[in-house]
């Protein structure tokens, strides 16, 4: 009979309408900004740089190796490597990024910089409320804006951050052991030149 299909459809609509007062499953509107749906652990938006200790300048893990700059598909990272070496957060002299800019008006949140970084220095942030009325300077993030503490990283990606910390601790322990062994070897072989170059820490294994 003509019209039954339409009636059936209307019944569905009515059931949804009435059901939305009773079933949580049908009432799904998130009342942003008052209410926010929780972001999952893996959520990613834009990259940021991690620093250890409390100094956002000296504590940066980044050693300006420029791998992320090279691998970034839309080429939105810009790094100028420093000319001198400064002690990093572990006390090792390392190069550092004199300039580290990320143009978030180009970034496509693909996470490839995070995957290729051998130093666990760059991670993905979860902040998305970044609307600006200006473009050029407002959307170019400089090093000081990008630097965020390891505690912040723990607060946004707790599981991943714990894994990263364990991995770094393991690598540091391995490096210390190696250094001790090297020192022992130097002590044993007295003929070797004094003041050997400090052994560079083995970078954590690339994923």
């Amino acid at each position, binding site marked *: 009979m003509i019209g039954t299909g339409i009636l059936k459809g209307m019944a569905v609509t009515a*059931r*949804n309408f009435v059901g939305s007062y009773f079933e949580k499953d049908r009432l*799904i509107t998130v009342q942003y900004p008052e209410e926010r749906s929780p972001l999952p652990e893996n959520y990613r938006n834009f990259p940021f740089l991690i620093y250890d200790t409390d100094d956002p300048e000296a504590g940066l893990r980044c050693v300006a190796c420029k791998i992320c700059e090279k691998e970034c*598909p839309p080429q939105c990272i810009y790094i100028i490597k420093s000319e001198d070496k400064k002690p990093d957060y572990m006390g090792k002299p390392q190069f550092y990024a004199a300039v580290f800019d990320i143009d978030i008006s180009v970034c496509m949140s693909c996470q490839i910089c995070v995957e*290729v970084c051998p130093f666990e220095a760059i991670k993905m942030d979860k902040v998305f409320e970044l609307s600006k009325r200006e473009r050029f300077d407002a959307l170019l993030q400089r090093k000081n804006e990008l630097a965020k503490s390891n505690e912040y990283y723990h607060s946004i990606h707790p599981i991943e951050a714990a894994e990263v910390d364990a991995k770094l601790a393991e690598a540091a322990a391995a490096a210390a052991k190696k250094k001790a062994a090297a020192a022992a070897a130097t002590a044993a072989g007295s003929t070797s030149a004094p003041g050997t170059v400090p052994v560079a820490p083995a970078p954590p294994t690339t994923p």
Partner: protein
Amino acid sequence: MNTTEMLQPPPAMTSRLDGELMEVSMGPQHPSTHGVFRMNVALDGEMVVKLKPVFGYLHRNHEKIGENTSYLGSMPYTDRLDYFCSMTNNWAYALSVEKLAGIEVPERAEYLRVILAELTRLQNHASLLGFLLSDMGAWGTPLMYAFREREKILDLFESLSGSRMMCDYMRFGGCRVDAGPDWMERAKKIVDLFPKFLDEFEKLILSNEIVIMRTQEVGKLSAELAINAGMTGPMLRACGVNYDIRKVDGYGFYPRFKFRVPLGEHGDCYDRLMMRALEMHESVGILKQAMEQIPAGPVMNPKVKIRAFRPPVGEAYGRIEGPKGELGFYLISDGGTNPYRYRVRPPSFINLTVLEDLCLGHTVADVMVILGSVDIVLGEVDR
């Protein structure tokens, strides 16, 4: 602007009205062209006598960029091809590179790929039906319901890959991260509830007299033309041609799952619409089997380097059954870090080949329904 070409009626078509032909440019800004698509239509009264699609309003040089980017760097770009189905795009590209370089994929990763591809098919078909209905004038309601379900699947994608739409999840030789047991539980729950939504949705639309009248006998396509014009996916199967790459090529463990390939009979818009509804039922079946059978194990082939990845010299064409049809990638490697030639075989672009044939003799209001039933996404049509 002289892009508008002179539209002359074919000589066989004689005017039934004593008026002149009217030339209409539909698009690129049009509420139901699903993006920036344009058609130059010549109308005799309300009848379409000629229709020429105009492309390129979203031509964003995907292939050129792919040739200037490393193999890995193209992966996030494939997400943006058909922005409804980033997972299947990822898979097609990963499959082609794996063919090009001869890479094995661990078993769990293949299962995960099947699960994600079928979830993608569910959300693509659901939102397609919503869009099609809103093109027909059911403004809002079906689309809202479809997007409600889509959001659930997007939540799954987001918690697994980190992004709602641009998943960038697959890698050559596996998947980027593993899905934990609680993710699997959530996915199972959503898949179990999906048939309930499907039944409700079908009640809402598929027996609706208006939908039937607007779609049956509209835009009929013969099987011969469909094969010759390279139709794939639900477009082809609505004409009754049994060709599903999941069955034919048997990639990604699809032979291990029991599922049927729904076939149409008339090749009209209604059959194309039904194809999507029936395929969703089959996808739910595949998902249930895959979630049952998925083994534990690694998700990445440890031998594959992610930096400085250089496949050997050669070429490969890999294809999968995407939600819209055959999605293929043709890659030529010269041994460097970038592909020498990077080509996407876009299903919805080639499915538009017959658009004029489908629309001729129908009213201008049917053009939107026919276009909607082809299921195009402009990111893929124009690349």
